């Protein structure tokens, strides 16, 4: 775990860039998925935002 965090710390910029992309890109398709009532797509896209936030938490 410590080694992974160290690895992430060394790639802080890339990790933050990926986290930001995962947080900022899904909301647009989420809007259309909500309009269509496509719940599966909604959970998948919210899952991406969750992964983005988990990544942000993991970067020391």
């Amino acid at each position, binding site marked *: 775990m410590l080694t992974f965090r160290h690895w992430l710390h060394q790639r802080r910029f890339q990790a*933050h860039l990926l*986290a930001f992309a995962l*947080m900022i890109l899904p909301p647009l398709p989420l809007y259309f998925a909500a309009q269509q009532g496509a719940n599966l797509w909604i959970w998948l896209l*919210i899952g991406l*935002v969750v992964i983005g936030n988990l990544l*942000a*938490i993991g970067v020391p």
Partner: protein
Amino acid sequence: MPFLFALLPIALIVVLMVGFRWGAAQAGGVGYLSALLIALLAFGAGPQLLAYAHSRAFVLTMDVLMIIWGAFLLYRVVDEAGAIRTIGQALPHLTADKGMQALLIGWVFASFLQGVGGFGVPVAVIAPILVGLGFTPLAAVVIPSIGHGWAVTFGSLGSSFQALIAATGQPAARLAPPSALFLSLAGVVTGFLVVHAAQGRPAVSRLIFPILVFGAVMGAIHFLVATSNLWNIAAFCAGMAGLLVALPLARRYRGEQGDNGLLDRRALAIAFSGYVVLIAVTLAVQLIPPLNDFLGQVVLQVKFPEVSTSLGYITPAGASRKIPLFRHAGALLFFTSLLAYLIYHSAKLYRPGAVRRITAGTVQRVLSSSVSITAMVTMAVIMETSGMTETLARGLAEGMRNAYPLVAPWIGALGAFITGSTTNSNVVFGALQMRTAELLGYRVALILAAQTAGASLASIMAPAKVVVGASTAGMAGREGDVLRKLIGYACLLVLLISLLALLGTLIPE
């Protein structure tokens, strides 16, 4: 129990940032995840509600991030040309009087820097200058920290105020007057505190005249510009006006050396030219209707349907705030950055590779704060649409009642202290403060002014800012000393806002 659940995301951010010293991006992520889970499991939020909440948060995030990106790009364009260094080197030549140096550099120049840059820039730039002038490292960090706090809300080209507007949906014209008034008055008191921190009480009596003159000029300009629909340049104009008044006055205070040195006026004029462009661009867009209309053609606005939780909390249908993409304050900052770059480039102030360094420096600096702001904005919107904010507001309203105007600035202060940012505090607590004010029957604009003013003034002692300041003055590892020194001054200023807010509730609308 629902109150405690609703409080949990905010409480987690506080504990993680203060107790475990996590960064805002990490703590924001935890805040988001906890808000999402609590909204799902305890407040009956369904997939559609959460999907629209994320979309709504995206629009609010863009509204705030455009200004932050633009403001930092402009700062990097100016800094890469050596203009900030030139201004910083020129100012000490105006006076050899230590108290006046503290006022001029630690208050007036710090306010100007907060107006254009923010993000910890005032302390990071000024602390080394003050150390070079013979101030102790502790004083060198404390003086600009106190000096810039009053200019935070309308500083950074208005990003914190934009966040307050975005988070509450209140019009700028209603929020600006009380916010600007509170902060302008706090600005005058700040002058006294800066001199006190630099040289103690005797210097305050000796320098009372320049303190009042600088304070009156900066406070009046700050208020007038903020209430004239130019709020994004209010702190910047106040700092600029302060410098214009301070330059001739400061030379009268020669200090013990009796010689103030020479001033390179041409270099100073070129250094300031980037900021003159900012004034010109902002005024041109405001005062030339065809240009205003032309830039306002492309508008981002999203319509959201009514959503409700399974517990019956309803968020009515409505459209998001209009974001005119090319007339947005962030877009104007991009135009200004481009023009400023051309001016400095033609003056041959850039070394080869400047564009790459400007771009890389901007992206690296804003990325982490973009992550934290996105996480916190999304958390705040999920809390709002799922009824968590409403639950918190009702709990606070029942607990506080008549004392609420006194408490409101401290809530803003707490937000700024834990997140290190007035913008984040306004995002997290803006809607909560508004709803509590509505429930208790207080004027919303007054309570929101107390929120943002309290946050601005307390942001100076946020651990994130203290760490930056201490490191630039060679005080890394002694952040506790800085914090201890700052707490008294910051609390005094927030207390002033509490009293002003209480006074405001006694005055009929």
